[in-house]
Every structure is written in structure tokens, then in C-alpha cells.
């Protein structure tokens, strides 16, 4: 699904990613683990084309993201969902309008009833069917995260990129979000890259874990494999 080869990205003298390599397989949840500021968010923003890498290649569905024209990148992005850490809900629109926004832009042939049905299905998936007419400012943090997740899923993307999905949430809500991630993964058979430093989230959601350290993919494996690792750098995440 995604192949990343020798990806490099710097901001001035801060070399965030240095020849980073990674592969995302079909229907897997890959968690990228790393310290704060290690470049995890930079990685997924490079994948979606929000940041332009300095060098290296990112191949998504066989397309080199850097070489795509603007309208080709827009088409590719309809196959990739992105859940922002800040949720990034459009605060001048209701929840319904937030979910309708991507539908109206890409699926022009839908009737109003079909749009309404898809919006309600998306809200029911995250157990928030009653919030359609609410404004984002009226939502709690957990509700906003679920609505953002519903919006991410509404175009049925094949790949989802999660930027710290449980950060800032209480433990109960965090577990609910993890449950939703797994539920939607099973229902829609998606592949996901989940950026996190929440070890409970990593344990609960990961099929495979990649450790980002010093700009490189330092170690890869299942959660249990990495937990048993004797490497000092890996062990410090699991203590």
C-alpha cells in the first residue's frame, strides 16, 4: 500500500527524517512509535503531501507522491483519510455539514437522501447519531475526536493516517477511540498508520510497530517482540 524509501526531511538544521524506510501492508495497523518531536507527524504529513520531503520517495498505490500533479494528488487523497491530532473540524459548520463537505466535493452523483444516509451511518459508526446539528464548539474532546474520525472515514478511504488519536483524552475515552479504530478497521478493511506515544494505544491497536529514532526506522516488529527486545533504546518505551 505504502512504500517509503530513504525519506529525508529537515527544517533548517533540524534533520527530522534521515533515510527513513517503511512499508505499510494491506489491511494492517502499523503504529509508528517515537518520542515527542521525533518526526512522526512529519512522516505522515509527507505521505499525504502536506509537507514536501527533501529527498527520497513515497510510493502510495504505486504512485510516487512527490511526482504527482495537484489534481492527481487530490484524487489520491480521496483514498487516504487523515485524522488530525487537533481534529481540525470546520468550526463554522455543523457536524452534519462537516461530514457532508467531502461527500459533496467528490461524490457528485449522490442524491440528498443518499448523502443524509451516509452521514447518519458515519455518525452511528461512532455512536453519535444525535449530534448532527451541533456545532464543533459544543462537542466535548472525545465527541470531537469521534466526529473527526467519522469525517475521515466517510469517503471509505483504503488507508487511514492517525496523528496521535488518543493524546489529550482521558483513559476511558482513549479506550473508546481505540475500540472505534479497530471496529472501523474490521468493518472497512482499511490499512492504517497510527502515530502514537501512548503505549496502551500501541498495544491495543498495532499489528506491527515501527520505532522512529534519530530520523530512522530503528526497529520493527509486533508489540510483544519489541517489548521483549534487549535493545536499550527500545526497552525505554516499554518500561
Amino acid at each position: 500500500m505504502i512504500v517509503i524509501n530513504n525519506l529525508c526531511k529537515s527544517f533548517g538544521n533540524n534533520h527530522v527524517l534521515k533515510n527513513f524506510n517503511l512499508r505499510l501492508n494491506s489491511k494492517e495497523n502499523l503504529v509508528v512509535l517515537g518520542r515527542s518531536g521525533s518526526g512522526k507527524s512529519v512522516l505522515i504529513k509527507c505521505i499525504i503531501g502536506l509537507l514536501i520531503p527533501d529527498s527520497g520517495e513515497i510510493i502510495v498505490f504505486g504512485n510516487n507522491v512527490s511526482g504527482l500533479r495537484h489534481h492527481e494528488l487530490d484524487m489520491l487523497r480521496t483514498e487516504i483519510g487523515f485524522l488530525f491530532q487537533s481534529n481540525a473540524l470546520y468550526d463554522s459548520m455543523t457536524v452534519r455539514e462537516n461530514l457532508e463537505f467531502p461527500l459533496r466535493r467528490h461524490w457528485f452523483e449522490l442524491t440528498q437522501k443518499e448523502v443524509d444516509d451516509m452521514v447518519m451511518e458515519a455518525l452511528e459508526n461512532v455512536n453519535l447519531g444525535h449530534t448532527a446539528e451541533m456545532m464543533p464548539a459544543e462537542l466535548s474532546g472525545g465527541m470531537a475526536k469521534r466526529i473527526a474520525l467519522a469525517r475521515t472515514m466517510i469517503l471509505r478511504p483504503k488507508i487511514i493516517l492517525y496523528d496521535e488519536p488518543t493524546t489529550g483524552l482521558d483513559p476511558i475515552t482513549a479506550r473508546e477511540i481505540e475500540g472505534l479504530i479497530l471496529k472501523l478497521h474490521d468493518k472497512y478493511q482499511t490499512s492504517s498508520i497510527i502515530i502514537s506515544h501512548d503505549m496502551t494505544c500501541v498495544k491495543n491497536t498495532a499489528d506491527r510497530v515501527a520505532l522512529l529514532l534519530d530520523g530512522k526506522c530503528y526497529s520493527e516488529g509486533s508489540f510483544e517482540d519489541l517489548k521483549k527486545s534487549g535493545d536499550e533504546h527500545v526497552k525505554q518505551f516499554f518500561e
Partner: protein
Amino acid sequence: MDIVAKTRDFFSQAGYMARFTSQLFTLAAKPPYEFKEFLAQCYIIGYRSLPLVALTGFIMGLVLTMQLRPSLVYYGVQSQLPVMVGIAIVREIGPVITALIFAGKIGSSIGAELGSMKVTEQIDAMEVSGTNPYKYLVATRVVAGTLMLPVLTMLADAISLFGAYVGVNISAVTSFRLFFMQILKTLEFGDVLPAFIKTFFFGFAVSIVGCYKGYNSSRGTRGVGDSANTAVVLSSVFIFIIDLLAVQITAIWGLN
């Protein structure tokens, strides 16, 4: 060194802004168009500005008349008051004051709105959903602002003239018909058209500056505040520069 750095920064910013503006004619000119959002912005920018523009226009006409009258009475030419006020409002004061009010209301609003969207990643969210945020956010607002300000200016001029009529009738009695006939007989093509055309440029300047500042807002609440503030200041400067150029052009064409 500081002056050199500041000069370099100024030209650098000017270059970024020119490139930002040029996207309007490359990206935004191609379909698909965001027509529904454009209409929504016309409503927000145009219709919702009506009360403020109307109030400001009325006061402008009233105050101008009350200030001018004593001088004209001194020289015994108070009968020329409607004509003088009419020409001043239509040619200069109406367009410029309305544009400055527009810059304060709409320029700051656009700068703050887009700045807020930038720092909360809403613009990024729009982009990753496959929507061109420049088309949806910037192009719609700039086109709406460019088209709405001339309309608002015409309204402001009309209400200003009514305010002037009220001002005249505070000290003397003049009929409504006589007052406006005097003005309309005197106004010429060269008074109305250049003033009307320059309002399109005012509207464009205010909208594009507000969009540029908001779209490139730095992070945090301070960044959003700075965007809104500098949008107003820079728009106001552009209004005066455009007005100066307009006066020179009309002088060259003999329309003064």
C-alpha cells in the same frame, strides 16, 4: 544591517504576496468553481455590511455638510453646498471612507477567520480531503469582496447624499427634489465612472490582503491577532495608494 534585513524582508514579503495573488488567475480561474461558497460570501461580505455602511454613509454626508456650510456662507455661496457635497461624496469621500470601513470590518474578519483556520489545521484538513483550500477559501472571498464593495459604495453614496440633504435642512429649507436635481445636473461621467471603477480595486485589495495575512498566519492566538491587525493596516495603505494612482490616471485622461 537592520535596515538591510528589513528591506530584504519587505521585498521578500511582497514577492510572496504577488505569488499568492497570481494563484487567483492560475488555480482559481479553472473549473470547478465554488459557486455556492461564493454566494455565501457575497451574503456575508455584502448584505451583512449594509447596516454599518448605511450608518457610516449617513453620518459622513451629514457631518460633511455641517462642516462645509459655514465656510460657504462666509463667501456667500451656500447655494452651491449640494453640488460641492455631492461631487466630494461621489468622487472621493464615499469610495474611500466606505473602503476603509470595509477594510476594518471585512479585512479583519477574513484575516482572523483564515488565520484561525490555519492554526487549527482546518486548511490542512480541507487540503487532505482533496479540496483546493485556495479555491474554496481565498478565491470566493476575493471575488465576493471585489464585487460587493462597489455595490456597497453606491449605497453609501446614496445614503450620504440623503445625510447631506438632512444636513442642509438643519439650517435652511430645501426641497428633496431641488437638492438632488442640483447634484444630478452637475455630476458628470468623469465624476462617477472613475470613482466606481476604483472601488473594484479597493475591494480586491482588501480581500486579497485579508486572505494572504490569514492564510499565512503564524501559530497561536497572537499570530491570528497579528493577521487580523496587519490585514486592516495593510489594506488601508493599499486603499490610499490605489486612490492616489486613480487620481493621477484620471488627471492624465482629463477627467478631473
